[in-house]
């Protein structure tokens, strides 16, 4: 863990249980982790180990059964639904495997969407993002007119447009070929370094995980 920099994410004794077909499935059994500003961390683990669940809990997309999640000075666990929405809007960036772009908006509008609704649009930063992500010639295209790699670059741009404290990525390269995945991840790493935010990426790939600062491995709901 990096030292000397402020902690942007702190997770303590996090537990989560699901009920499926009348049976209780314990997904997280007391997870502890923390990430400092500017730190890039890979979250690995076999299928069903609780990686995505942990990411969703940190993002406030779901609520934990126990434990605490703190994003900088805010306890995510104590927030209401509206509070968690505000947290995602203002302090988090999310990137998904399925890109999840808004199909009816062109690239430019997709890029600025989150920063606009957060009220933190920065034209200079937007221009830099467009240039670094290589989206200059694609701004008027719609998502269904882009390749997978291009769509994921737009998704990363959207997530970083409001300069979040923490970038969360759930298998962002899962739908991409190896070369494209490398390109996209390199861009993400550079931009995270440029903004100084924390970066937590769920991945199955040990090769990609090795390109980040640190790797956390989840096994049976616990940090191994």
């Amino acid at each position, binding site marked *: 863990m990096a030292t000397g920099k402020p902690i942007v994410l702190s997770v303590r004794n996090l537990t989560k249980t699901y009920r499926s077909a009348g049976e209780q499935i314990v997904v997280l059994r007391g997870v502890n982790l923390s990430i400092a500003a500017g730190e890039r961390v890979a979250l690995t683990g076999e299928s069903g180990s609780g990686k995505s669940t942990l990411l969703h809990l940190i993002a406030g997309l779901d609520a934990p059964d126990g434990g605490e999640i703190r994003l900088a000075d805010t306890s995510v666990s104590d927030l209401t639904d509206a509070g968690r*929405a505000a947290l995602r809007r203002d302090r988090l960036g999310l990137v998904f495997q399925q890109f999840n772009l808004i199909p009816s*908006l062109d690239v430019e509008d997709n890029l600025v969407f989150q920063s606009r609704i*957060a009220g933190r649009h920065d034209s200079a930063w937007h221009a830099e993002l467009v240039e670094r992500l290589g989206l200059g010639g694609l701004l008027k295209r719609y998502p269904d007119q882009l390749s997978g790699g291009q769509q994921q670059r737009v998704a990363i741009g959207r997530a970083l447009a409001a300069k979040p404290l923490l970038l969360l990525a759930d298998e962002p390269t899962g739908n991409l070929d190896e070369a494209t995945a490398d390109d996209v991840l390199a861009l993400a790493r550079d931009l995270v370094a440029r903004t100084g935010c924390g970066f937590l990426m769920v991945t199955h790939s040990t090769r990609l995980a090795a390109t980040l600062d640190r790797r956390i491995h989840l096994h049976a709901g616990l940090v191994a």
Partner: protein
Amino acid sequence: MTRIIWILAVLLSHWRRHPMQLATLLIGLISATALWSGVQALNQQARDSYDRAAATFGGARTAMLVGRNGATFPQQLFVDLRRAGWPVSPVVEGRIQIGGRSLRLLGIEPVTLPAEVGNAPTIGRTGLQSFVTPPGEMLVAPETLSDLDLTEGTAPSASDGTLLPPLRVQAQLVPGVLVVDIGIAQRLLKMPDQLSRLLVGKAKGKRVPLENVVGDRLQLVEPDAESDLERLTDSFHLNLTAFGLLSFVVGLFIVNSAIGLAFEQRLPMLRTLRACGVSARMLNVVLVVELVSLALVAGVIGLICGYLIAASLLPDVAASLRGLYGAQIPGQLTLKGEWWIAGIVISIVGALAAATTSLAKAIRLPVLATAQPYAWQQAQHRWLIFQSALALAVLAAAAGILWYGDSLISGFAVLAALLLGAALGLPAIVEVVLSFSQRSAHRAVAVWFWADARQQLSGLSLALMALLLALAVNVGVSTMVETFSRTFSGWLDGRLAADVYLIASDDTQATEIKAWLRQRPEVEAMLPSGRAETQIGGEPIEILGLSDHATYRDHWPLLQSTANAWIRLRPGDTGLISEQLARRLKLAIGDRIEVPAPGGNWTLEVVGIYADYGNPKGQIAVNIDALTRRFPAIPQTRLALRVAPAAAPALISSLQSKFGLDGRNLVDQATLKAESTRIFNRTFAVTAALNTFTLGVAGVALLTSLLTLGNSRLPQLAPLWAIGITRRRLAAIELLKTMSVALITTLLALPLGLLVAWCLIAVVNVKAFGWRLPFHIFPLQLLELVGVAMAAALLAALIPVLKLARMQPANLVKIFADER
């Protein structure tokens, strides 16, 4: 605020990429608003006219003093009452003819007119001097001026050559009425020093008792909250409103379908918005703002369309109301501001009602669930069971209302519950038929055909429900109109059995005409008749005096009677009553009825009940001699003649030239029947037009559902194309599938429609008009409707099917690509 605008812009961007879906939504809202507002405009126009009529110098809205027997009374009574402190104002009333048109002439005294008399004060004050000083002025409604083909300021002549005062337009006046100063009216009507009634204003102090001033010569009539016309026409307007409501509901089916599909397609977008930090509350607020904005746009366009629909139907509505109730409705549509506001509100409320399910889903939307387009299909079975249970409950409610209800409203409630129950039950019935067909199929494509039709059902069910409703109402109304048409035709033959009908201008002329006719060998019989008006239980009643002659005995449309009913009429202590009066007063053969008459109550035993279709008033038929004995003041000017048909035209021509009678007071049987049939046809012209509109809206619902489903069907169709079924064959299969589902719906609509017809004939008509028609089924008409429905389904299916047949293979290949 910027945040809301951004989120709204994102939501609206969906419509930019799916313009057909937006068009569907707007078409649904526009149709619903247009048809509802159109009908409301017609009702408002008519009701405003009733108000104008009621407020015309002593209509039902003003308290007044009238003669004991409805006769005129000396002007001195007015003077006596004024001296005694009664705030009364005199009115004299009669009829004059201008250019062959008979018009109601009112004479008023503007200085004493009470302020409560509607539009009177404005008439009295403006130009009071020119109104009362010779030659005076004759106030006229703009519609009447236009009907008379005269211009303002012209001094017309009456048909008898008398010069009338110059005409002045008064917009508030009801059409068909002329208003002059009372002195002029008394001279024109040859009623010197006589008055028809006294209008009573609000007294400031205590009034001297009426009897102390005028004895029992005048009686006080209190104002009515609702005029006779309003009471009589209630059923007609309720009928129109019911149709407007049905069209509105069918339109909302389209809206519901479009919003539901849009919501399912936007689910991934909504989840992304939530993931990007838009709170559930904010998202719902913006969804509502978006819907209300669209409803506002559609509402304005719908109102314009509604205005056009109302303007195009108004002549038929006016003719129906004039023919049925004698109500004068101006042909020019004038609408109040409230109509526009109500139209916009109904559009917004309708849109929100149609979107309730989708908005509720949005409120409960979990951020984490993976996007599941068309998730409703997975829940189809559970939903069908719920919907079927609801259908059964609504149908049970219909049966309950039918059993216990006893009013026109309950009649319409039965109809509404029946239609709603059937519509709710439709998807389950179609599902059963499709599932049975699937089990019976053996070939692979046939099995897929039925299975896929079942899968498509959830997307099409709303459109099919709209089609079912429109078709059932079409069958119901067409059956009722056809039944009415045939019954009416036979009934007219019985009621209009004489060959020539005439009305003399007065008793003197009637005597002269009778004397002249006695000399004519072609006249086989002269049958004098007469009419008197009275009230029983506060309702207006007509008493008809008939001659004792075979013309009536052999043809009069009696539904029930005692033996020798016509012979029993002769002494004057028995009467025949119309079906509606029998139902209203719950009278049967042998019962006695007390009829208020000038010389005291006249007790009549009911010896027969006859059909009197289309007459809003109750009617009693008695012997003509008995009628003139009891109502000596009635004019004896009506005469029916039995003439050899070939001789009728020459006789009419001679009567016209000798006595100056024209088409309105001298008419042969064929013309009278043709006129009655024309009025009948126009009465149902509005119903037929609304019927067609509703069917059209249902067709649009089917088309829009198929179009919006078109693209989402590709994942189901592409695999079949991949395994070797040509696009052309796929298109043919799709067409066949739509037609099969539409045919099942149409076949179900036929029995439902007949049930609707039975409800209209046996429940609604009886409550609305007081008479019941025999129930007939017209198979050819039903067959024709099946043809129309299938043609509508074919037209609706054609565009999406052609699109599929011409689809580029690249679009089908995309279905199998990851990067769709």
